[in-house]
């Protein structure tokens, strides 16, 4: 069964989802992760159970000693149900890979989800910082500081030439993957997205789906991240991703202006119908929530009056995923029941959001 922390996570919303960060209406979140391995031990997939246990306990011990991670909670994968694990995947805290494997693995996470660490995933340690909106530098700085603190105790596999040594050579060097989750409905609508994505890959960046590597594009969300980890410092990588992201935001902005100039009424109609769908449906799939929410988010960016806040939309996006719905209900459900329950949640969240808006006015 879920630990207290996971219950807390189910009830609250991570700080990275609160819509308070810069450009939150276009950039949902910023993520920076560092891959680290301990010296003198085989990488996870070649390690024996007792070595994995040793790695797990030395990471936990070090985390306990680190002031900034005092409140971190440890969740060993073996003690979690499949539903709990799926919940953590939906929350962007663990990978499918960590969830699926039965070996000694775990997650360490702060209650506000700003910092977390997967232990014994592909690499011994995958340290992750999540921040609201578009704030690459500060996300990097906070993860960097924690990496330094952990690195005083943990002896990282490192060599002066190749940097941090990782199980896959695609991560060797800085071991850093920085990314933004960006919402590009106008570029998709105007069919310019293909060209933009092609441009992104040509400058050495990668594009992925909503849940990162190997996941699908959903609701016009794209994850853009650096591809290379050697030959460039962390700061240079962050700055170049920042530059490209700014440019994409600019393209998206221009595509939006174009759309509005040509078809303002049709666009607004689409947005309000989407809102109506969320507000009044009685049976709804998570894919439909994602798609409708995407349209409403577009409306929020256009400053249409009477729509929910970015925070409420983020909440919809995260809280209506299958494992979230089931954990809130306190039981496992088949898809039909979930879709009914989900429609209920969506209405309740939107009513709450509307009340929030009324309160603040």
């Amino acid at each position, binding site marked *: 069964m879920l630990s207290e922390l996971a219950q807390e996570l189910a009830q609250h919303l991570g700080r990275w989802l609160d819509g308070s960060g810069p450009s939150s209406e276009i950039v949902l979140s910023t993520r920076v992760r560092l891959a680290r391995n301990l010296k003198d031990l*085989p*990488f996870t*997939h070649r390690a024996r159970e007792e070595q994995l246990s040793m790695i797990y306990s030395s990471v936990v*011990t070090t985390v306990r000693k680190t002031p900034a991670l005092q409140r971190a909670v440890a969740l060993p994968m073996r003690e979690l149900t499949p539903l709990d694990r799926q919940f953590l995947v939906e929350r962007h805290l663990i990978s499918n890979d960590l969830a699926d494997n039965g070996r000694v693995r775990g997650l360490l996470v702060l209650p506000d989800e700003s910092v977390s660490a997967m232990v014994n995933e*592909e690499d011994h340690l995958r340290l992750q910082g999540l921040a609201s909106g578009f704030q690459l530098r500060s996300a990097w700085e906070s993860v960097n500081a924690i990496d330094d603190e952990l690195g005083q105790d943990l002896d990282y596999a490192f060599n002066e030439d190749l940097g941090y040594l990782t199980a896959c*050579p695609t991560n060797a060097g800085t071991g850093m993957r920085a990314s933004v989750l960006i919402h590009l409905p106008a570029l998709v609508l105007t069919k310019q997205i293909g060209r933009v994505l092609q441009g992104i890959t*040509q400058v050495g960046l990668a594009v992925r789906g909503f849940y990162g590597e190997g996941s699908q594009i959903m609701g016009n969300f794209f994850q853009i991240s650096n591809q290379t980890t050697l030959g*460039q*410092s962390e700061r240079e990588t962050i700055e170049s991703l920042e530059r490209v992201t700014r440019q994409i935001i600019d393209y998206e902005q221009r595509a939006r202006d174009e759309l509005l100039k040509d078809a303002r009424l049709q666009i607004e109609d689409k947005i309000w119908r989407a809102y109506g769908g969320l507000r009044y449906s009685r049976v709804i799939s998570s894919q439909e929530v994602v798609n409708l929410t995407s349209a409403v988010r577009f409306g929020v960016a256009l400053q249409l009056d009477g729509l929910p806040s970015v925070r409420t939309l983020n909440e919809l996006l995260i809280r209506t995923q299958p494992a979230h719905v089931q954990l809130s209900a306190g039981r496992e459900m088949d898809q039909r029941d979930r879709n009914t329950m989900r429609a209920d949640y969506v209405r309740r969240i939107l009513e709450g959001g509307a009340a929030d808006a009324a309160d603040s006015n």
Partner: protein
Amino acid sequence: MEVKASKMQCEFCGKRPASVHFTEIVNNKKSEHHVCEKCAEERGYGAPLLKSKFSVGDLLAGMVDQAGVGEEAKVGRVQCPKCHLVYSSFKETGRLGCSECYTTFRAQLRPLLRRIHGSTKHVGKTPVRDAARVALRREIQGLHEDLQRAIEHEEFEAAARLRDEIRVIEAKGGLASPGGTS
């Protein structure tokens, strides 16, 4: 080599087979290009294009094509003395076995890393423990040089002081280096 004839030729040199294919958009005009890797690199299409191919499998397959068959079989049997991973197994999974593998397969990994990252040199941060070690090593080295100079100039008092200093730092370094972690 006979395969060449059936393949598309590079549009720049007309000699080598075209292995890089891309669409260029200039002033909203689309045009398709088929060039060999050498010309692509020479004309500046190289770096970003190569960087965008990131599947380890593809990269390795590409490298297999470059090496001779016999040579390839030999390389595949190279084994890491520490974790016993053989190179051919890395090629299948894309995962190395331990940090020592980076030394063992250094010759094979270098071109691969260059293809993936466009570089083989780390210029990012250094772990605090290593940074401390490197700094300490440099400090001790500096003191040793001072000591040598003092001895050459027959400044024995200074030499004795330096020797004591080195001992203190080395002892301190012993405490700071690995041990009491796991």
